Each structure stands twice: as structure tokens, then as C-alpha cells.
């Protein structure tokens, strides 16, 4: 049971880390999209 818990925690940590990176990347992407759009005078 203890080993199962350990595996679950490890997976949750890995998924949380990936999600954090993806969200961070999305924020950066949105920033550059905004800069590009305002520069295009749309």
C-alpha cells in the first residue's frame, strides 16, 4: 500500500510539474500574441 501511494504521489507531482510548465508557456505565448496583434493594427 505504501509503495502504491508513493507511485501515485510521484505521478501527481510529475503531472503538476508538466501542467505548470504548459501554463507558463501559455502565458508567455499570450503575451507575444498580444504584442504581435497590437503591432499589426488590427
Amino acid at each position, binding site marked *: 500500500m505504501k*509503495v*502504491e501511494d*508513493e*507511485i*501515485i504521489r*510521484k*505521478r*501527481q507531482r*510529475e*503531472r503538476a510539474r*508538466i501542467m505548470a510548465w504548459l501554463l507558463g508557456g501559455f502565458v508567455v*505565448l499570450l503575451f*507575444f*500574441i498580444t*504584442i*504581435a*496583434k497590437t*503591432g*499589426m493594427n488590427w
Partner: protein
Amino acid sequence: MPTLELTNPAALPADWRDFVALTKPRVMSLVVFTGLCGLLVAPVQLPPVLGFTAILCIALAAGACGALNQWYEVEVDGKMQRTAKRPLPAGRMERQSALHFGVGLGGFSVLLMGLAANWLAATLLAVSILFYVIVYTVWLKPRTAQNIVIGGAAGAFPPLIGWVAATGHVATLPLLLFAIIFLWTPPHFWALSLFVRSDYAAAGIPMLPVVAGVQSTRRHILLYSLPMAAAAVAPWVLGLTGPIYGACAALLSFVFLVLAARVATNRATEPSAMDAEKHLFAYSVFYLFALFTVLVADRFLPW
């Protein structure tokens, strides 16, 4: 990492690598490439970040299609050797997780495309996802041997979407690129289905070799390769590309037709003796990559 075998792996939160596997990354590479080519040959140059975002959206939409396809076909995948190790049939992921992931990814890709590029491109992206999932996966694939003929339209959208993301409108050249992939899909998949037909038969999918037989499929491959070759050279004939593209398209298509003719005259019934089919399948992937590479080169290089 502990190597304990768990009694119920699906009770674990799925590994992030399994979510990546759901998106069928290898299929996605061709989709991304053709979408990128559609964007690059457009007469309007998008700012790099918007071009990158448009291609990212096409990739995410393709991933959503892969996830939703695997969510719907979990039982069929479990019966086929080729697909039995995927996350859902192998029991490494809850089915509901794949559905949520696919719908979320698809919705996100459409919204982002609309915000970053334009809403016509976003609409085409939404149509391509719905076409692949509802028309191809749910409706045609389990019902008719013509599934890949009509369903192939879903995979033909990316260059059109790439073009529309850049220009905001549809034109003749991207429609021809759509036609090339649409007509390329049946010979490509039928060549594959010939040497894995026992898998399709076991899963009850009415692919052409299962329903109409091996020889009929071989004739169909040659028959569909002819209009595909015509569509491939059409951009040059109509003056939409330069002579380099025309010459390369003619040469690449000629080799395709020769390989298709070899398949049509092959009489082997055992997959181990289907070298002609395997060669055509491998060449068909190279063909599409090469054709679109030349298209982009023809647009940019000062020949």
C-alpha cells in the same frame, strides 16, 4: 522508481506520457508539416509568433482527434495487435480521462486559433475535428469500405487551414492542396490495410481488403493514384506554382504510379510476400513530404 505491478493500473492517475501517446504524435507530424506548408506558401506573411500559434493550434487539434478517436475505439483497438498497447486498451488510463483531454484540447485549439489568427481558420479547424471524430470515426469507419475515401477529407484540411490562418480567405491553391491529400489518403491507407488486413478483420472494421478482397483493393489503389497524380501537377498546370514544382511533382507522381502499378499486378496474398504494398506505403509518406517541401521551395527560392 519502484517496479511494483499494481492490481488495477487504471486506478492510478495516468502518466503524462500516456496523454502524449493519445495524441498520436507520428500522425501529427504529417499534419503539422502540411499545415506549415499551407501557411508558408500563402502570399501573406504572418508575424512569426502568430504563424507559430496557428501551427500549434493545428497540432493540438490533430492531438484532440487522436485522443477522441482512441476514446471511441477502445474496444476495437484492444482487438488489433497494432493498437492493443495504446493507453486505453492496455488499461493504463480511464476512458473518461481521454474524453476530457480530447474535448479540452480540441476546444482550446479552436479558441486559440480564433484569437491568434482569424475565425474562418478557427471554424475550419472545428469542422476538421468534428469531421474526423463524428463523420469518420463514429459514422463511416465501422460501416462502409469507403470510410477512408470520404474520411480522408479530415486529414486534408491542414494546408487549407494554414493558408486561411495567414490570408483570412480560401483560394484555388490551398483547395488543390486539400485535393492532393484527399486523393492521396485512399492509396496510402489501402496499401497499409493490405498487409495488416487480418487485424482489421479481427476487429470487424470493413476496410476494403476485408470487404472487397485483396485484388479489388489493389485495382482501387491504382485507380485512385491517377487523379491524385493529376491533382499533384495541377498547381503548375494552372500557373499557381513554378516549373520546378511542376517537374518534381510529375517525377514524384510518376514513381508513385509505377509503385501503384506494381501493387496492382502483385498476386501475393500473404502479408510476408507483400513487398510491393510495403514499398508503396513507405513511399507514399515520403511522397507527401517531398511534394510539399518542393512546393515551399518553389515559392521561396529564386530558381
